[in-house]
């Protein structure tokens, strides 16, 4: 859809502007992005929070698209993009988004937007100590801003947008401030990164997403769908100790890191074993500290796995029981821990019965307890979300469910539990996912429902007929459009 409201410039002026662009001026392909976003309230999952204004940066890439950060456009209700020194806003939409790597590609419907704009070319991973320049529209002014810095180091870092994924990232001392997000980091007129995060409490520390991650993203979407970065689901630990190396009959050299744990990845469980020693991952020899030499940088071996696309295999050299073996390990994107990271653009599932609001346990839900949520939520919910799959994988529920809140109604007026608790069973049915809540309630038509909570068997009962009668009243009183979103 074209926006006429924000198109004050005449065509002649616009053409004049286009004529002044050249590929040697990267800033001309750098765009400013304005968003109006709205995310749900996970503790009242039918409700959306207030509209938020945000801004970020982006740049034009091949195929008439704009690359930016996923976090710039997540939950966006409207995306406006503006060209360099062009006052007109254009409407944009998300074509592809990778929340694990914090990259998004935008499309602009109005063809005129790309007129005269040269796509920026993707470069290679910059060298440490080399100089880079960030381009973007950070806070503190209206016009494009440039900051120069050196590449400080290159390592695997946690990507804060999703919170539970770590990928290769480049640290620079070039200032990266709010609004810089999504802007290109340029070296020799080529994009060597996408600015994406800073580090709280550290000075002159900004991070950008390197070309390796960007290329992985671009290849991933070639089939028209973004899958994400696959993971082997193994815990790899250093193997420095002489005794442990001798115990594994491994030469006392600098090679080999130990597979210490395998975390419920079917292929890894079939093909790998604890105490296997990883000697080589793809083309990269693995050091005893669990790192590889990756384009001149020592980084965690996971960087080798991150070169593989979902469903493809990586060739591993393994030391097993005193012998070297080769394994072709298929890699898949891990889905099991999605709820333990930030989730975007998918509205939360919920079901309301008798004023009781049930929703899946997730990090997003826990964050509704406030900035210090980890102090506020019960230990049981934190354990369930972050630890159970490691310790007791056989007892993991695919989708643990919480009673988020009790919407006061005569049907539940004398409840002692007010919400914020994990559901164990309803009418004797172990709740493995939200649909189980519905079927468990449907089992009992008269008498009372028995709802049991974790951890110590706290329970409440709900009159079955009163709960049914309460349904329309609760929806009306609390302005809830539907009793469920599944």
């Amino acid at each position, binding site marked *: 859809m074209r926006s006429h409201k924000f198109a004050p410039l005449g065509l002649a002026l616009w053409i004049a502007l286009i004529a002044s662009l050249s590929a040697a001026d990267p800033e001309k392909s750098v765009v400013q992005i304005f968003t109006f976003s709205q995310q749900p309230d996970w503790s009242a999952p039918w409700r959306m929070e207030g509209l938020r204004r945000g801004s970020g940066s982006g740049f034009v890439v091949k195929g008439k698209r704009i690359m930016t950060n996923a976090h710039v456009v997540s939950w966006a209700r409207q995306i406006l993009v503006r060209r360099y020194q062009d006052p007109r806003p254009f409407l944009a939409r998300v074509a592809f988004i990778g929340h694990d790597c914090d990259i998004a590609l935008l499309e602009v419907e109005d063809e005129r937007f790309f007129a005269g704009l040269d796509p920026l070319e993707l470069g290679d991973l910059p060298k440490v100590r080399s100089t880079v320049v960030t381009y973007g529209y950070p806070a503190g002014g209206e016009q494009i801003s440039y900051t120069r810095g050196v590449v400080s180091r290159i390592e695997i870092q946690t990507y804060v947008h999703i919170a539970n994924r770590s990928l290769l990232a480049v640290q620079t001392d070039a200032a990266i401030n709010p609004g810089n997000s999504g802007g290109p980091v340029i070296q020799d007129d080529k994009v060597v990164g996408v600015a994406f995060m800073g580090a709280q409490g550290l000075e002159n520390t900004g991070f950008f997403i390197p070309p390796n991650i960007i290329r992985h993203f671009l290849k991933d979407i070639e089939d028209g769908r973004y899958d994400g970065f696959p993971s082997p689901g193994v815990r790899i630990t250093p193997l420095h100790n002489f005794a442990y190396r001798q115990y594994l009959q491994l030469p006392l050299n600098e090679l080999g890191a130990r597979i210490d744990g395998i975390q419920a990845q079917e292929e890894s469980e079939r093909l790998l074993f604890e105490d296997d020693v990883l000697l080589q991952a793809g083309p990269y020899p693995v050091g005893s500290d669990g790192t590889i030499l990756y384009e001149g940088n020592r980084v965690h071996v996971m960087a080798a796995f991150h070169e593989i696309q979902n469903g493809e295999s990586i060739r591993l050299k393994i030391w097993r029981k005193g012998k070297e073996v080769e394994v072709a390990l298929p890699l898949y994107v891990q889905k099991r821990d999605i709820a333990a990271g930030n989730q975007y653009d998918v509205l939360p599932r919920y079901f309301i019965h008798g004023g009781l609001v049930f929703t899946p346990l997730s990090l997003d839900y826990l964050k509704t307890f406030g900035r210090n949520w980890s102090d506020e939520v019960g230990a049981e919910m934190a354990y369930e979300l972050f*630890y159970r799959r490691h310790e007791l994988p056989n007892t993991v529920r695919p989708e643990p469910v919480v009673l988020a809140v009790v919407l006061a109604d005569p049907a539940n007026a004398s409840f002692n539990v007010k919400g914020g608790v994990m559901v164990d069973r309803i009418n004797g049915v172990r709740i493995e996912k939200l649909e189980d809540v519905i079927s468990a309630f449907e089992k009992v038509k008269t008498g009372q429902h028995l709802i049991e909570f974790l*951890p110590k068997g*706290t329970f409440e009962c*709900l009159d079955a007929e009163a709960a049914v009668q309460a349904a329309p009243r609760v929806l009306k009183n609390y302005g809830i459009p539907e009793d469920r979103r599944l």
Partner: protein
Amino acid sequence: MISPRLFLFLTTAILFWEVASPVTHAATSLNQSRWEQAIINIESTRVVYDSMQPWIKRPRTYLKTGVVIAPREILTAAEDLQDRTLVRVQKMGRGQFYEAEVVWLDYHANLAILTVKDDAFWKGLQPVPLLRGAPSRDDLRVARWLNANLEIRRVEFSQYTMDDSRLSPIPALYLEFDSEMKSIGGSAPLISGGKLAGITCQQVDNHVRALTATFISSVLEERKKGNYRGLGFFPFYWQPTPNTASHKYLKLPGEPRGVAVIFVPELPVVEENLKPMDIILQVDGFDIDPQGRYLDPDYGQQILENLSIRGKFAGDIVRFTVWRDGAIRVVNYRLPRFDYHLRLLPDHVFDREPEYLIAGGLVMVPLNKPFLRSWGDDWKRRAPFRLVYYDNEFPTPDRPSLVVMSFVLPDAYNLGYQDLRALAVEKVNGKVVRNLREVKEALSSPQKGYHIIEFVRSDTIRRIVLDASQMETANARILKRYGIPKAESLSSP
């Protein structure tokens, strides 16, 4: 508006009154000399252990109060007497200190009796009686020695309340009052009607809590009879049950009343026990309301846990009337004795050196609250979540306790493991270990020349291996390098 001059006068007058008032009150309503002859200063020196490096101990000296309650007997709270090395007492708030001996002490009741061998100490001292029943709320005073003068002040009654004891998870009934006195100190006498109505044991700002004389008397009388078996407790969990639908579900006729039992831990074993979904209707004849309260004849509305210590002790029967499976049942519940080891993570370890075992630089300790408290007062937030989470779990016969590898003393022997810390140990050389003795025993059976140490499966490292043949040599080197007196401190088998 008050003129500056008048304000100055008022201030002076008030200040004067503040200083003079103790004497004034004592003269008018109290026999001051009687309390001067009974209130004792206590100086307790004890060692405080570094839970992270348990071979390190530091002396600390605490000052508190005691009261002579019988010939050659001084009553005080048990707190600050743990891990003591020297206790001294002083009478009349001044003069010579005498060495005292703790003749009886119970940390769960938070009570202790001291005596002094030197007859000279007892000259001029007179016991004061303990009050029977609840004190008059309008006649409460607190006394202590302050700069060699007895300070006695009126205090304002607030409430009776149940809360955890200072040194034990067993709840205690406290008389709570407000006082302008700063830092009253431990075990100051609470006086009512000229008798000892309690001893103070907690103060936050001007809110002070005291153990009641009724509770103190009940414990001391049992002790005097030679019959004190320790405090009992209710190990089960219940929930407030105001939900009428829950009563219907459990088919309890009549008005909603009582509370539902939700969880009964496996340990301690209680022969005639409650069950989940029992509704507790009465305890020892007292009706229980849906919030778990009963009407105490002395202390008003109180939570039902008070009935586990209200004149009852470990081994006594508490009579529960419960609604179970659609009928009223009576459960003769024999109160189990509380012991710190009934918790998976014991709350305290007193009067013995903390346990540890150094194996090739790996420092192994029992996982307990003192260890977690080494992360500070907000240990629940700062200590590793996984270790803290064990506090939500219960001991079982298979897992009565846990061992944790707290940290590594770096050495060439353990190179590669130097950054490991705070890991719960599951197995050593293939054997499940629940305490340090089992760790030591398992280390005597290396696997083909190696010690294999496995940590509890979690999000951290699972296994490490050490050279068994070199461990003893490495231990000796490590102890010397880090100035550690001995490689182990283990509890008696």
